[in-house]
């Protein structure tokens, strides 16, 4: 087990929680005392800050957990689908000849862009709120193909093998067009045009499809130009950064089963993060009422944003309509690597001016995002390049942030864990380190001087918005404690250099921030109902993508209701059975859906107290719930929740189903904070480097389930490690993908991981459920800047492109020595 403190026993409270803040209070009095005053005392928490067993853990380890493809036994006549994809990067489909495939034994249907069952409507696959802040630029099957992998046709057959064979017999004729592959060239006046402006509806801010521009945006606080003019030239630093494609490598490939049930309702069992958005989008696209669509999310093999997309459901549904039987569509790993969704590649420029006493006077950030072939999440991801990391420095008086989001004939970027913040943090946090070193300041002290504190008013998060509705006050911030404890854990002040002459060791740090949901664009809802035995059904729209959200929901409900988490049956993410929820994205689930659970539980608790008052003959305001009872502290009398359940359900005079509803939305999105440390040894002759250790210290408010929080941090660091060291996609000069499987893609294995230490710094966020903020995305932001900074510390050179290879380091060393 991970025990960052080494000896657990000293730090334990009677309730088993490590009282980390208690031992740290002396070291950081200012920081801790402020947090402490808000904090719910540990002994009042029965089921929070506890490593409650993940509610699906046992069925996972026994192989009984059912993911979408495991539901095949429910459908005796289930057909298998296969998609025929464009093998050119840009052009028009002139003809599809499916006659040979259609004649094959066991083939039920072939659909093309011209079929009646295939909608000819523009839409966005982005699983976002309505109307999506993404252009409607897609068709279900595509006559105008824009990248190698665009879906052109699809087959349904009796099994996957027959569908594969039939798909290979479908021939497609194209009129080929010149592709655009370089994002720097995409906006040239003579570049081939990827979209006819008429092909796009719901265009986004700054769109100019004559120039392959999906969006252009800018925002400014203060006067950045003037600040640069007034600053000394030697205290103005400008840097450039570049990041590659990254694959989600989602364990369970996109999979969906589409069928129509005996009540003529269109139903999906599907691997999605966004059941309710998918329901709405299917209804709009196929012109059927929302109420006649049902989307059920079973266990899903993770999402990471790849499944914040209606990527394959419409094709499965069209096949189902044509084949007149249930259809399962399951992506291959090869398709995942070239045809589905990715993290947007970007090129960024950052410029700052620093005063003589080390204050940042101005920050100017520009990003060029390569959206690839379609605009799903294109603008919003690029927005987050600035609006996530710039709020690390909210007291900087002059800030500008601009971006261009351009189309190319390459795979489309989309939502991916971090959502622009990993790119932005690489630019901002490597830049800040570079600034400090060039000005001969300690990079950590420079950060501590300028970084966010509790009580700051953060306007940079809303720099792209009009008005001050989304300007936020920072109510919880444990960043300095993250820095101090991270420094201590990595041994920041006592780095020993290796004996060998060519080896140099260095330590780098990056500060990190994220959000907790999309401010002003979230809604989560919950219903709790009591059973007569004192247990509860918790119906929650929130989506557990494997993170343990269902467990966290149960802990919050149990804490309020005063029962054990085992007495809560969580029913989640089925558009027929649960209240609405926007879905699992933007680190919203604990903060938004979790708060809705708390509200519902509080409403149900009022009714428990009503019944307790009746049964104990005491006023409700003198009663409390806990330990499976409604009790009176004054008299010591109590009734069990089971007694309450039976009395409420079968009582003689009066009966009531104890219910509670919660519906939560807010303009708040408090940032969780973190500090990533990387300790590296660099070989000055070869440029090879080895990461000796990584430490991550996180302030996510109150960690409702610390073991699950640690899991989020360690998994996020894994993705971040890949982004820093080994990820990326390659294409040839015609836009053909060259990375098509795990063997070519650099996903880190057990043997590639350095030792990792995880530190949870507790703060209390007053707007979150029991003080919680978010954690899931924060740790994907840290390794690239921390590693770049560590290499700079070790050998004095700066690497500005990801992934960082030995060749890059070597080239930078050669440049240094020239």
């Amino acid at each position: 087990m991970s025990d960052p403190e080494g000896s657990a026993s000293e730090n334990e409270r009677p309730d088993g929680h490590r009282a980390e803040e208690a031992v740290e209070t002396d070291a950081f009095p200012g920081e801790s005392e402020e947090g402490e005053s808000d904090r719910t005392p540990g002994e009042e928490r029965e089921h929070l800050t506890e490593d409650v067993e993940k509610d699906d853990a046992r069925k996972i380890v026994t192989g009984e957990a059912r993911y979408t493809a495991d539901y095949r036994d429910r459908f005796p006549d289930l057909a298998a689908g296969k998609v025929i994809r464009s093998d050119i990067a840009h052009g028009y489909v002139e003809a599809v000849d499916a006659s040979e495939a259609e004649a094959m034994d066991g083939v039920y249907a072939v659909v093309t862009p011209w079929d009646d069952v295939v909608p000819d409507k523009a839409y966005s696959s982005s699983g976002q709120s309505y109307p999506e802040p993404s252009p409607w630029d897609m068709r279900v099957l595509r006559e105008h193909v824009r990248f190698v992998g665009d879906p052109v046709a699809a087959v349904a057959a009796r099994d996957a093998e027959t569908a594969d064979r039939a798909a290979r017999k479908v021939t497609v004729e194209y009129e080929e067009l010149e592709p655009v592959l370089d994002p720097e060239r995409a906006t040239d006046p003579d570049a081939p045009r990827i979209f006819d402006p008429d092909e796009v509806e719901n265009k986004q801010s700054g769109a100019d499809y004559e120039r392959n521009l999906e969006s252009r945006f800018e925002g400014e606080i203060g006067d950045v130009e003037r600040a640069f003019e007034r600053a000394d030239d030697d205290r103005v630093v400008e840097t450039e950064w570049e990041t590659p494609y990254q694959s989600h490598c989602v364990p369970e490939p996109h999979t969906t089963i589409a069928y129509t049930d005996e009540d003529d309702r269109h139903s999906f069992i599907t691997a999605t993060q966004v059941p309710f958005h998918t329901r709405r989008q299917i209804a709009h696209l196929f012109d059927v009422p929302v109420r006649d669509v049902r989307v059920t999310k079973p266990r899903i093999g993770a999402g990471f944003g790849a499944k914040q997309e209606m990527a394959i459901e419409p094709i499965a549904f069209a096949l189902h309509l044509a084949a007149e039987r249930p259809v399962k569509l399951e992506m291959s790993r090869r398709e995942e690597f070239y045809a589905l969704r990715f993290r947007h590649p970007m090129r960024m420029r950052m410029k700052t001016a620093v005063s003589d006493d080390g204050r940042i006077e101005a920050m100017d950030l520009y990003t060029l995002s390569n959206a690839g072939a379609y605009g799903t999440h294109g603008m919003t991801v690029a927005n987050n390049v600035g609006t996530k990391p710039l709020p690390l420095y909210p007291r900087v008086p002059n800030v500008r942030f601009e971006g261009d989001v351009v189309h190319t004939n390459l795979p489309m970027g989309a939502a991916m864990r971090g959502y622009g913040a990993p790119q932005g943090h690489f630019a901002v946090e490597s830049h800040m380190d570079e600034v400090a070193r060039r000005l001969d300041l300690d990079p950590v002290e420079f950060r501590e001087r300028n970084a966010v504190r509790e009580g700051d008013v953060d306007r940079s998060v809303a720099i792209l918005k009009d008005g001050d509705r989304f300007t936020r006050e920072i109510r919880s911030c444990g960043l300095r404690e993250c820095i101090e404890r991270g420094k201590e854990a990595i041994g920041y002040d006592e780095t020993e250099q290796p004996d060998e002459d060519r080896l140099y060791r260095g330590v780098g740090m990056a500060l990190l921030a994220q959000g907790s949901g999309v401010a002003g664009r979230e809604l989560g809802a919950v219903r709790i109902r009591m059973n007569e035995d004192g247990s509860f059904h918790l119906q929650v729209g929130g989506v557990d993508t494997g993170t343990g959200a269902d467990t966290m929901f149960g802990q919050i409900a149990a804490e309020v209701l005063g029962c054990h988490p085992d007495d809560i049956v969580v029913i989640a993410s089925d558009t027929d059975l649960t209240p609405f929820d926007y879905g699992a994205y933007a680190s919203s689930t604990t903060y938004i859906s979790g708060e809705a659970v708390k509200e519902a539980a509080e409403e149900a608790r009022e009714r428990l107290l009503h019944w307790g008052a009746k049964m104990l003959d005491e006023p409700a305001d003198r009663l409390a719930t806990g330990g499976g009872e409604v009790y009176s502290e004054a008299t010591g009398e109590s009734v069990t929740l089971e007694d309450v359940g039976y009395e409420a359900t079968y009582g003689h005079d009066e009966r009531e189903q104890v219910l509670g509803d919660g519906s939560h939305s807010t303009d708040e999105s408090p940032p969780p904070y973190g500090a990533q440390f990387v300790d590296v040894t660099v070989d000055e002759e070869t440029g090879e480097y080895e990461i000796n250790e990584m430490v991550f210290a996180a302030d996510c408010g109150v960690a409702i389930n610390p073991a699950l929080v640690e899991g989020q941090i360690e998994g996020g660091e894994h993705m971040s490690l890949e982004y820093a060291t080994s990820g990326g996609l390659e294409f040839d000069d015609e836009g053909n993908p060259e990375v098509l499987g795990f063997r070519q893609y650099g996903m880190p294995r057990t043997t590639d991981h350095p030792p990792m230490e995880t530190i949870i710094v507790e703060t209390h966020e007053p707007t979150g459920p029991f003080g919680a903020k978010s954690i899931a995305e924060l740790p994907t932001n840290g390794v690239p800047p921390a590693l770049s900074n560590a290499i700079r510390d070790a050998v004095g050179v700066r690497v500005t492109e990801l992934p960082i290879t030995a060749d890059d380091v070597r080239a930078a060393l050669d440049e240094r020595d020239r």
Partner: protein
Amino acid sequence: MQIELELNGRQRTFDAAKSDVLLDVLRRNGYTGPKRGCDTGACGFCTVRIDGDPRMSCVTPVAKVDGASVETIEGLGDQNDLHPIQAAFVDNSALQCGFCIPGMIMRSKALLEENPDPTETEVREALSDNLCRCTGYKKIVEAVLDAADRMNGDAPMAADGGAGAVDCEAPPWSQGGGDTE
């Protein structure tokens, strides 16, 4: 064609096509614990044991297992009576989405039968063909080391083979399984 094999200790006969791989036949017959992740033997989600050896069932032609002994995750413990490796994964929170876990556990079982007291490095090497996207592998490696202790009787097992901290007097981090790094 028909394939006869010993599956989780029972003699079974399955209909199969020549082109089928073992994973197809297992999943078609209700053994959906092994997961399909890549179809190329590159992710390890479909790992089963064939005559004791860990194998990727997605690249094993079914004809090759005719007469063999095959063990899948379904052959281990059930939810109320977990195998020590399963219990260690639960107690160490060594799982998130779970898609890689059946393969990871089968690989771990093969390791621990061959090497009952592995070092952390040996665990990492043994699991290096099995990918996990959620955990960063840290808790998985800790779980396998903990499982080794449990199977060797070195560590107290949670009473019911995997209880969470809530039911335990002492939380998992204060139990013997903690000294694994």
